[in-house]
């Protein structure tokens, strides 16, 4: 055996470091900020199930993104074929494609030539990736033409929509003044929103559930809605439902978008004649356009459409040159506020659907922490007593290692910023039960070697040596299970895998290295004739 003083230093050093790394967890955040810079200041991150909060998994509706592009494509096709005077019928979106049939099938090649101009090359995805066009256009002998998005165009569009949604979601949640929300992209078309401490997830869901696409249209006052409903209306108008309970149920609007929410720079909830309203202001370009529209259309109705519904259609009484206006409607103070927030944060490129929600109130979280802490303490006490009863002084060594083991799991969690969840606490309790396994293996082996007639020193050496191999094999196989759990599990279960895996790693260290040093130090001091095992 080597120098005991060196080993003693190691034992003390490990403890000092282990405790130091944990200390920031005992301090408040303010106290942490006052610490000198060289001290560690990481704290354990509590999962939402422990600190309370909401976890929302949102999915960007990919279909809507594609449909939007296809609808746009319909008007492009119309514009492309008109100058060439190519006749067609049945132009429209069908499933995930734009279809049309030429009245004169013999002009198919000419039509395809015109449509090819609509089809730009997409920028290369990477070196040697080859060039891809946005559309796949197929024509058949009977004059039928199909335009579809190519696989890559589709992916890029959805990807862009998700990135943009991510940005809008972030702005909307920031507007709520919620602190420390985490907003992450997940997979190809999902967004994970985690908001700690939120008592009312419904407000967030309402806020994220709206696309908030705002457009301004002129009302086609001269057209009878019944005509449009019967499909006999003129081209370029559409029938839009009203969001109001009073007044007409439907409006006929020109399809042409005069202005949209993108031109807004500000929106605020205020009061007008004691009614809650939303005031808004356009950017300079929007303001110029707004001024021109209001100048040209005095006396006409100007519809404000939000997510496919007319929220109000005021009459233009006079030109509005200042670039600001007011949306009135049957708002409550709350809904006016919500709309203002939505308008400030901007529109989502596609609707978001909540596909998973998990919300925990802060009280339940606190209860869980309390129950978990008590479970850890009781489990430790039971195991500690058992070990002392069964293995005497060696049990004490195992217990010191056990406590160090728990401290080190928490250290790793603290330093690596891993999240502690309720199942994670269960993982720690389980580790307590199993941490002593390594010590048990070693001690039983030492007993065996001693009974086989070895001297105490040789028995200790052989015991640690032989048992270490077993411990490493057994723990590594368990680690494989923990890794699989981490990889494929989700949410709280991941937290369980984390503490289990950390427990296995620290356990190998404490049992094999740390206990050995303690046993050797003890042996040097006492030089027993027989091992008290």
């Amino acid at each position: 055996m080597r120098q005991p003083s060196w080993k003693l230093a190691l034992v003390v050093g490990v403890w000092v470091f282990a405790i130091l790394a944990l200390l920031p967890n005992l301090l408040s955040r303010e106290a942490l900020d006052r610490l000198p810079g060289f001290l560690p200041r990481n704290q354990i991150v509590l999962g939402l199930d422990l600190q309370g909060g909401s976890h929302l998994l949102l999915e960007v509706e990919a279909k809507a993104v594609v449909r939007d592009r296809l609808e746009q494509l319909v008007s492009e096709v119309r514009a492309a074929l008109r100058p060439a005077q190519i006749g067609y019928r049945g132009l429209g979106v069908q499933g995930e494609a734009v279809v049309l049939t030429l009245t004169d099938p013999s002009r198919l090649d000419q039509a395809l030539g015109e449509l090819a101009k609509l089809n730009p090359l997409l920028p290369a995805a990477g070196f040697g990736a080859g060039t891809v066009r946005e559309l796949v256009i197929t024509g058949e002998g009977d004059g039928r033409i199909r335009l579809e998005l190519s696989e890559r165009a589709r992916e890029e569009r959805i990807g862009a929509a998700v990135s943009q949604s991510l940005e809008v979601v972030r702005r909307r949640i920031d507007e709520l003044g919620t602190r420390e929300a985490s907003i992450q992209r997940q997979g190809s078309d999902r967004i994970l929103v985690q908001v700690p401490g939120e008592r009312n997830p419904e407000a967030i869901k309402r806020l994220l559930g709206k696309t908030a696409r705002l457009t301004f249209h002129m009302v086609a006052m001269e057209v009878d809605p019944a005509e449009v409903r019967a499909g006999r209306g003129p081209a370029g108008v559409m029938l839009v439902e009203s969001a109001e309970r009073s007044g007409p149920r439907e409006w006929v609007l020109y399809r042409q978008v005069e202005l949209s929410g993108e031109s807004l720079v500000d929106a605020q909830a205020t009061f007008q004649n004691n009614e809650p309203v939303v005031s808004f202001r356009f950017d300079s370009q929007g303001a110029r356009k707004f001024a021109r529209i209001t100048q040209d259309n005095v006396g006409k109705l100007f519809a404000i459409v939000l997510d496919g519904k007319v929220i109000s259609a005021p009459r233009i009484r006079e030109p509005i040159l200042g670039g600001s206006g007011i949306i009135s409607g049957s708002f409550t103070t709350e809904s006016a506020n919500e709309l203002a927030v939505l308008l400030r944060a901007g529109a989502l490129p596609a609707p978001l659907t909540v596909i998973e929600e998990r919300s925990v109130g802060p009280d339940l979280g606190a209860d869980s922490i309390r129950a978990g802490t008590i479970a850890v303490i009781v489990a430790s006490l039971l195991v500690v007593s058992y070990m002392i009863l069964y293995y005497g002084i060696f049990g004490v060594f195992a217990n010191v290692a056990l406590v160090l083991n728990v401290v080190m799991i928490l250290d790793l969690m603290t330093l690596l910023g891993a999240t502690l969840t309720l199942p994670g606490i269960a993982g720690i309790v389980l580790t307590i039960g199993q941490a002593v396994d390594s010590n048990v293996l070693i001690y039983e082996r030492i007993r065996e070697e001693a009974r086989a007639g070895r001297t105490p020193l040789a028995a200790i050496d052989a015991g640690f040596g032989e048992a270490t191999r077993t411990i490493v094999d057994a723990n590594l196989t368990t680690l494989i299970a923990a890794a699989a759990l981490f990889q494929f599990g989700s949410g709280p279960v991941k937290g369980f895998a984390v503490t289990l895996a950390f427990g296995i790693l620290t356990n190998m260290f404490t049992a094999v290295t740390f206990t050995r040093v303690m046993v050797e130090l003890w042996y040097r001091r006492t030089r027993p004739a027989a091992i008290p095992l």
Partner: protein
Amino acid sequence: MWRPRLVPDGTRIPFFRYRWIAFVWSFVVLALTAGLIATVGLNLGIDFKGGILLEVRTPGPADLAGMRATLGGLQFGDVALQDAGSERDVLIRVALPEGGPDAQRQAIERIKAALDQAIGAGMEYRRAEFVGPRVSRELFIGGIWAVVISLLGVLVYLWFRFEWQYGIGAVASLLHDVSAAVGLYALAQIEFNLTSLAALLTIVGYSLNDTVVIYDRVRENLRKFKAMPIEELLDRSINETLARTLSTSLTTLLALVALFAIGGEVIRGFTIVMIWGLFVGTYSTIYIATPVLYYLNIRRSAEPQASAATRPG
């Protein structure tokens, strides 16, 4: 100083002789599991089935019948209420409402509104979960993958570190443990959710630990006692590690009992299954993992290796 001993030194229990009884027992357990899953099925939680779960605390003692009537009025289909630890705490499970994402998104809000109206002020919503159909399917498939991948990982690891027979033996015993644990879920109709998955994989981890310890001893003894009949050698290995097996099982059991008693309602189902898994895992190491080595002729393939790898001591 007197100290208790779980196992006297130098036991010679002829485990191997009783293997037939164990085989019959294992067969019965597995057949029961298969039968239960085919007939009663698992009580899938919302993680794997989709649906809504609310945990509420009522201002006074909860009136379950009244709440059931209130929620029944919403016409959401399946509504299940369950006592969640105290007389004021109630778990509400509701099947996914029909009618697309919008209806689903508003469902929690509608339930809360209905309860607020029926019970009045003071309702506390402690937990609300909603899992959509696609997510639940993904979680289920992810869960199956987690189990399969971990078993494959074990198989490969043991193949490299030991011999292929050990890999097969360990995986066979793990399959037994997983089935027996799933059987308990079906029998007691304990909710099977993401936490249950963690329980299954922990049982896998625990049982594996146990198996590897005995395998390690078998490997060692194969090198030491070249002429010993394999049955005797396997028995000897189990007996030599018996003290450790029981000691570790006991400490793990102590920790689990602590979790069971005070860990709270949320992880109670988890701990019951873990306690069962602890017994099953210990049993399967002795009566599945070890006999497999016998039937796969472990000695023949161990011999050339053993002579090459003999070490002093």
